[in-house]
């Protein structure tokens, strides 16, 4: 089934195509819905819940929910904002996110969404995890303490690189990113140019030798908040690295 339908987001009528997700339709119409685990070019994952909207009054993940005729969607409401703030807040305190010296600062989607939502300080207590780093790969550095378990690298490796470098182990609070190798990252077939390396929204997967090479003022989110590019129709949520 294909064809155009109309739906309503925050009282505004937009056009969408049957088969699109709410997120894709909103992007195309220049409406920004915050997201973290969704990335253009990858299959949707629906895990972070940052993109939650109300569809005819019921919460749905915009990145996985297909559009349907007659949908009335709420995106920017105080209740949804509070929900997103709470989710982002938990991601911050679950990891060690020291923006002040993280090389991803200014290019980090977690930081950028937090700024856009006006988060200044966390509401929950920091958990200060100790998940370790992996420096074994000649071109890639991994800081597990910054991983937000979005699964973008897992999918990018499979879907874009045709490899299977990353995977998750454990459940719930014990869930961790790991690699398909006995000991460390250098034993995988990950290459420095792999798309998986660029897919990480935070400073958990880093390409060695690139840190701080973009000066302050010219980084991705230095001059306008994340989502501005969608609202001005310049581009969709392609990751630009």
């Amino acid at each position: 089934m294909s064809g155009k339908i109309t739906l309503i987001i925050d009282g505004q009528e937009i056009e969408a195509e049957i088969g699109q997700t709410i997120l894709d339709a909103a992007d195309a119409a220049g409406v920004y819905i915050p997201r973290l685990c969704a990335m253009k070019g990858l299959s949707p994952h629906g895990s972070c819940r940052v993109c939650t909207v109300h569809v005819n009054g019921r919460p749905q993940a915009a990145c996985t929910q297909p559009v349907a005729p007659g949908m009335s969607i709420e995106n920017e409401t105080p209740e949804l904002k509070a929900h997103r703030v709470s989710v982002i807040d938990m991601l911050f305190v679950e990891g060690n996110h020291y923006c002040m010296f993280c090389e991803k600062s200014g290019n980090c989607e977690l930081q950028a969404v937090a700024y856009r939502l006006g988060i200044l300080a966390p509401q929950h207590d920091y958990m200060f995890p100790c998940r370790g780093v992996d420096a074994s790969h000649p071109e890639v550095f991994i800081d597990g303490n910054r991983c937000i378990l979005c699964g973008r690298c897992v999918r990018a490796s499979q879907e874009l690189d045709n490899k299977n470098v990353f995977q998750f182990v454990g459940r719930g609070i014990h869930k961790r990113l790991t690699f398909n190798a006995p000991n460390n990252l250098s034993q995988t077939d990950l290459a420095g140019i792999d798309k998986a390396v660029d897919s990480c929204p935070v400073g958990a997967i880093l390409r060695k030798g690139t840190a701080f090479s973009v000066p302050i003022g010219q980084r991705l989110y230095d001059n306008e908040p994340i989502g501005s590019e969608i609202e001005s129709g310049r581009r969709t949520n392609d990751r630009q690295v």
Partner: protein
Amino acid sequence: MSTKITIEPVTRVEGHGKVTIHLDDNNQVERARLHIVEFRGFERFIQGRPFWEVPVTIQRLCGICPVSHHLAAAKAMDRIVGVDVLTPVAEKMRRLMHYGQIFQSHSLHFFHLCSPDLLFGFDADVAIRNVIGVAQKHPELAVQGVMMRKYGQEIIKATAGKKIHGTGAIPGGINKNLSIEERDALLKDIDQQIEWAQGAVKLAQDYTVSHLDEALAFANFPSHHLSLVREDGAMDLYHGNLRAIDAAGETVFDQVDYANYTNYIAEEVRDYSYMKFPYIKSIGPEDGWYRVGPLARVNACNFIDTPLAEASRQAFMAVTEGKPNNLSLAYHWARMIEVLHAVEKIQLLLHDPDLQGTDLLLKGDRREEAVGLIEAPRGTLFHHYKVNEGGQVTMCNLIVSTTNNNEPMNRAVESVAKTYLSGQTITEGLLNHVEVAIRAYDPCLSCATHALGRMPLEVQVLDREGSVLDRRATR
């Protein structure tokens, strides 16, 4: 020893200091000690972190001179990535950043912290002897201080991206050049800044010369002096080789590649202080201590390669007939000579087209160990790292400027205590003079750089059993 007098801060802030004065049985000062709680956690904290992160991380060690740590770490990491000589634009951008830092740090110290002492006298009421007093009595000076500091900060922003805790220097180079717009904005004010810097030197010089008797009687003691100098012996605040001279100006060592500093400098641990005591190895811990910072640098160099500062240096050296100056109070004059030198260098750099170059970064063969040194505003700053194959820091040793000046500051406090303490009663005069002596060295203690120019101090006289005989606190 029967009595111990303790001077300690009321407000326990990071990097606070405490002074104890130890009396013998005849109520004479036996010795004095300055205790500085130095936060050394960084040396452990960065272990395991990637080396390229360190120049940005390590500057968080200090909110007062972060640029110095940023650059010293970057210089070490240049060598880790196998780069011994940077591209012209990278080296000059870093120099510009550094001169901006020297300029703003020294200006802040002189106008906001030190000028109240010089303008109103050490014994003046603290209600007047502060930066607000300066603003009321000498508004033009207070404004100059603010504007000079701001100018230095604008330079830091143009080179590091932010006025504080920027990211400009990266291993092997720099992440930006100076745009024409940035250059022109800075050039607009340069003549005014040079004029103000000349005025500041004159103020410090006139004060020192007209109060020479007082300066000779105040924390005046011989010491070695340590500094980086250029290969031709010129003052060089960003890069050079190590030179140490003795109190009479004789060479102890010269043109030492700082990568080998451990052959020349060692650090002694003493049970009463968290801060180590560095010394010249060949002389030993007893007598091998040395001064660093503006006084040591002006004493140690053969000349300054900018004309206005060189003329000031010659006037400075003439006071001691060409021999090293060992007066603690001469630090202020030397500091202002460096302000003038820094701003002359800034002017030269702003006119240098290399700063608009685009060749920002070099790469070489990875090394496992490296040392980076810089002449920070407060003195020689040592950064030493080992890095594993994957790029993780496995060892870090820092000798910060204030640590290098540890023993001299102890001596300065002791000298002042001997002069100004009588009996077991703590006078306002003693408090003031201890404060002024410590401040001459511009140590990076938050309490020493208290916004109103007054260190939060408490003085206690204790008897043999430790009960308090007398107490006096600053307000």
